[in-house]
């Protein structure tokens, strides 16, 4: 019995899940310490955050809406990382996806399903090109993907800021593109919501009505399907096997007859396509347009955090994305409720990533604790 427990414990601690959970706990602990030092009651703050996430169905709906793009950019980063590539460029791939979706959503007039498919499809292509370019120049010219994707992020940002100034695409001087057609939107029940029956329903059904007040959309369903797709490609296809082999050891993969350069390009194409979908879904489901960007919005960078916390897997990205989305949305509540800086969330996320990166430290702490417990 005791042996079983020991075995289970060591499996938990040596496995990534255990280390991740400990890292998350340490992140919360450090967040609490910092709040305490700043003169706030951390328990109260965490209670406010918890209530801000779960106490109303509307909040839960917002958390899911917040989490959706993060899950998908997380999947994007995770996919490239499994091939050993660091896709800092999810941000830029997201932006070009958003541009394409906004353009396709506005310029075309098509029936619903077709319109959404076209907009998402074009966004995938744009993102795939953006990511694939970084993969190609890495494979062909040896330019490190971290640098090329940083450059491509900025090119995407300025490209986006350029297209919103075009008179065909947005009204002059507003810095915004025209809203996409209703047939390109993926919001659920949006017409019905503003019909008389819908208004009546929202008034009478507290929980469901509350949810309908938020921009509920099909994005989350896409995110889950994409997570399954990523899992399937990586674990059940030859391509995925080859990509993972390259990530594990490129020299061995090469020796084993895998075309490493080709794999890099494929990996970045798929990774970029995923980030492009994230941008598209945000436009089709939430913003319905693109606007001038004063700075990077951070969906791609947050996706890196999601991927790392989620241990670079499909399911991990979904869970980490939900965690990040919850903290981001719930964390914003402590500002009004108790004037505590909401940025404690960023500090917590940073801490979690830092500990995730240091399994050696966590094991050391655990060994010390164990020794103490024995004495």
């Amino acid at each position, binding site marked *: 019995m005791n042996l079983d427990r020991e075995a289970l414990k060591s499996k938990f601690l040596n496995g990534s899940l255990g280390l991740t959970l400990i890292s998350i706990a340490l992140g919360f602990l450090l967040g609490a310490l910092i709040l305490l030092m700043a003169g706030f009651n951390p328990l109260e703050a965490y209670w406010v955050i918890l209530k801000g996430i779960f106490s109303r169905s509307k909040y839960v709906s917002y958390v899911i809406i917040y989490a959706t793009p993060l899950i998908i950019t997380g999947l994007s980063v995770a996919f490239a990382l499994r091939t050993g590539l660091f896709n800092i460029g999810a941000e830029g791939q997201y932006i070009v996806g958003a541009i394409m979706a906004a353009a396709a959503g506005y310029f075309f007039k098509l029936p619903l399903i077709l319109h959404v498919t076209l907009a998402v499809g074009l966004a995938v292509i744009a993102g795939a090109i953006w990511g694939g370019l970084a993969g190609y120049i890495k494979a062909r*010219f040896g330019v490190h993907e971290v640098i090329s994707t*940083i450059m491509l992020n900025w*090119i995407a940002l*300025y*490209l986006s800021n350029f297209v919103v100034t075009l008179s065909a695409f947005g009204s002059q001087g507003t810095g915004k593109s025209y809203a996409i057609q209703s047939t390109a939107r993926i919001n659920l029940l949006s017409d019905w919501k503003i019909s008389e029956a819908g208004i009546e329903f929202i008034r009478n059904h507290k929980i469901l009505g509350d949810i309908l007040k938020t921009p509920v959309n099909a994005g989350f369903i896409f995110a889950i399907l994409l997570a399954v797709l990523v899992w399937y490609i990586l674990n059940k296809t030859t391509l995925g096997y080859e990509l993972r082999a390259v990530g594990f050891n490129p020299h061995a993969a090469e020796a084993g007859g895998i075309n490493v350069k080709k794999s890099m390009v494929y990996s970045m194409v798929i990774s970029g396509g995923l980030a492009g979908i994230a941008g598209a879904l945000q436009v089709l489901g939430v913003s319905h347009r693109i606007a001038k960007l004063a700075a990077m919005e951070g969906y791609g960078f947050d996706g*890196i955090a999601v991927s790392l916390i989620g241990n670079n897997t499909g399911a991990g990205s979904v869970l980490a994305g939900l965690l990040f989305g919850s903290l981001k949305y719930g964390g914003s509540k402590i500002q009004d409720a108790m004037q505590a*800086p909401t940025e404690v969330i960023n500090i917590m996320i940073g801490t979690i990533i830092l500990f995730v*990166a240091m399994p050696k430290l966590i094991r050391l702490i655990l060994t010390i604790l164990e020794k103490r417990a024995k004495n």
Partner: protein
Amino acid sequence: MEALIKDIGFIIGTTLMYSTPLIFTSLGGVVTERSGVINIGLEGMMFFGAFVGAAVAYYSQNPWWGFVSAGLGGALLGLIHAIACVTFAAEQIVSGIAINFLGSGLALFLSRLFFDGATQTLTIPKKIPLPFSFLFGEGKLFKTAGFMDLVFNRFATVYLAFLLVAVVWFVLYKTKIGMRVQAVGEHPEAVDTLGISVYKIRYGAVMMSGLFAGFGGAAMSIAVVSRFSNTLISGHGFIALAAMIFGKWKPQGAMLACLLFGGAKGVEIFLGAKGFPVPSSLLAMLPYILTIIVLVGIVGKTTPPAAIGKIFDKTNS
């Protein structure tokens, strides 16, 4: 003709001003990467430095205290990065990403505490001084708004940045400690067998990179502008990182690459002021496109330090 000379002076001057924060940070990148540690957290260090610089300059009413504190703030983040990467064998890029979240998170957290819930500081009472302003003006050596004034009447940080390029170059190539840093970045095991601590040198280099990145942030918040705000440092650290690689991991190369990025900004501002009919966003894109083209073109000629990104574990060697 005179107008043209003035325009050129304006562009050069603005270029110098906008290159400065990048040069500081990029030099930080050179120092850490030459020791074999990737620091993608430069962005967060710069962000934090920009806040600390402005906050301390505001409360102490002395921009120099702000500048020094900004460096120390960056170095503190550098220490965290070093603990993670050098001592605990963390994946360097992952740790750097964590530093970026920590740097921006801490800066905004503290900003809200010290500036009444705002994510920006108040305007600082005194910016970094213009050290040569006594040379310019009515009845002085050079007249106001002339070429010389536009180019050389710049913040002290501008001069410091270029001075630091020379210092880093000298230390890296002409001193024993600089040679050791390079050796650690190329072949840590060999250095270790000579009885020199790889860990100590890497700790020093990574903290130094934080120091410089902190200076870079302050050069933005208390010289180029006169306050910190949440969008002030938005990717500058990443640009500095790219400039360092563009400059082939050399201080002088990094400086030139930073001047290119700063120059694009200078031209952009100039054309904007003149109402020139080229969309500023297309122009702003150019240096990034150029960087990619150049990186593709100089393939084979750039080699990062051999031990970069590799974990050195003394117990293994």
